[in-house]
């Protein structure tokens, strides 16, 4: 199982959290395509809180957090 957490504008028209069944070879790219999120809208992509790449293969139980461009301070 892969838990996907969405933030900021990516929540518009989507759930805050989506769960995907794990399969060998599942990546962030697959997930964002399924969620109809454009690659350009992914500014920050974390796997278990650590910077990842959307083409990285995920492991069963991973938590993915996806943010559009955000900032503040």
């Amino acid at each position: 199982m892969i838990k996907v957490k969405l933030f900021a504008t990516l929540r518009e028209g989507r759930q805050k959290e989506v769960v995907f069944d794990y399969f060998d070879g599942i990546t962030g790219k697959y997930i964002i395509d399924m969620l109809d999120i454009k690659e350009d809208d992914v500014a920050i992509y974390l796997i278990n809180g650590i910077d990842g790449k959307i083409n990285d293969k995920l492991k069963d139980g991973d938590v993915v957090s996806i943010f559009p461009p955000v900032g503040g301070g």
Partner: protein
Amino acid sequence: MVFGYAGKILRVDLTNRRFRVEDLNLELAKKYIGGRGLATKIFYDEVDPKVEPFSKENKVIIATGPLTGTSAPASGRYMVVTKSPLTGTIASSNSGGYFGAELKLAGYDMIILEGKSDRPVYILIDDDKVEIKDAGNLWGKLVSETTDFLKNIHGEKAKVLCIGPAGERLVKIAAVINDYDRAAGRSGIGAVIGSKNVKAIVVKGSNKVQFYDEERVKDVVSNKIKMLRENGITGQGLPTYGTAVLVNIINENGIFPVANFQKSYTEYADKISGETMAKDILVRKNPCYRCPIACGRWVRLKDGREVGGPEYETLWAFGADCNVYDIDAVAKANYLCNEYGLDTISTGATIAAAMELYEKGYIKDEDIKEDGLSLRFGDSDAIIGWTKKIGLREGFGDNMAEGSYRLCQKYGAVELSMTVKKQELPAYDPRGVQGHGLEYATSNRGGCHVRGYMISPEILGAPQKLDRFSLEGKAEWVKIFQDLTAVIDSLGLCLFTSFALSAKDYIELYNAVCGFDFNQETILEAGERIWNLERIFNLKAGIDPKEDKLPKRLLQEPIPEGPSKGHVHKLSDLLPKYYEVRGWDEKGYPKKETLIKLNIE
């Protein structure tokens, strides 16, 4: 003809209730840009660094920059420079809103307050008409009462800067508030103004800033506005959610300090996030002068009142840092900080430190029994109740009004104060962001995130993504960020423009407005000059370079859980390199050749 600058300084002698208008030294202005830089230079030349912050010999400089009050985007900023009663370092606290631009349009680059009035006064500035007026009836009044009263007398167009009851009572974490809810928040500057018996400054301006090249300014400005609109952070993230959008991202990275930095991740962050604020309490945006970003928020409190909303730092300080996940309570505490004139970061963080002192048994029930408030982590009523008591120095709040360092010191537990140079750290655990921790340790005003915001590259990926755990290149990055930030602060622009703009863009604006010929090298050199002058002030004030440190917890106790689990901050590996790239000796003193290179006498 003077371009960009107003060309005048208003010097107010509070002791003798006199003022005079002086010409700005343009050569000096060009060397130190304006705002934070020029105010620091003038302060350094006129005030003994060893001065007692509340003595009449301390001065307060309220300074705009050459771009403040122009058509440049986000150009409403001004800076308050003085010696801090909290840190003993130079204080330079920055604010937006409308006051800064109005001061410039009244014809002044800066106001210098000196001496001490023997009774409460406010200063009225209407272009070249200046009066020092009695404020006896305003002493004790909240910020909104003071602002309403003064706008009632002097007109809706008048812009008001004032202190609240906290500044009057010399609370060491008191802020200066302008336009009801914008704060020059940090380092206790509100108390310095309070010590001079100044309640408010009211300003009305009807001039225009002159440009060297009108057409060029028009083109450059529209280009920069376009860049800000097209950038994801300044064009979309900040406008939609305000700074509060950071709550979830910082938490997801496991660097969101919880319960006075005892943990760095919480499963409840979303309850106090920008997303929740937008859904539950947001009324509208609350923009500053000429700002296309408009990150300020206007929110509805539980009792129906509509007020300025909490920033990210505030949602953290009163929220996660106190283990409170009640957005209504945090918005209320934020509102009280604006009314009493308190720094939200230091107030929330001091309450959090008191909560840890209580839970560890240092503060006893009998110490706070008269107050009728708890000091338990997670208590929403406590954050509201203690904020008021700090603002009024009432009951146990009198101890907390000294800030967390002096509070923890009183109980023999300074290691529980999450401060650098006695100023409370903001909302990022440096154990999981190494460069940002170096910035905390070396900031010239103590614990502070906006002197070189390394979160931008280390977390947000702007202008490029750096590995947040790596030490590689971080000393160099921190130096450049600190120098560039000094430039932006001195120009009178909002730091948030730097998510989209780079040094080159600021140079284009500055040169077009003033007719100068700065390039990347000379502008960053000016930033470096400002940084070094602040450092020299601090050294002469008696701040030992050994104070370039972080609380023991962050150096020795690994983050216990979450995505940054197991990490500590590696300051001792970073600091020697930082001193080296700064051209300082291994003890942290600027080398003579560095000062000669920067042309600092």
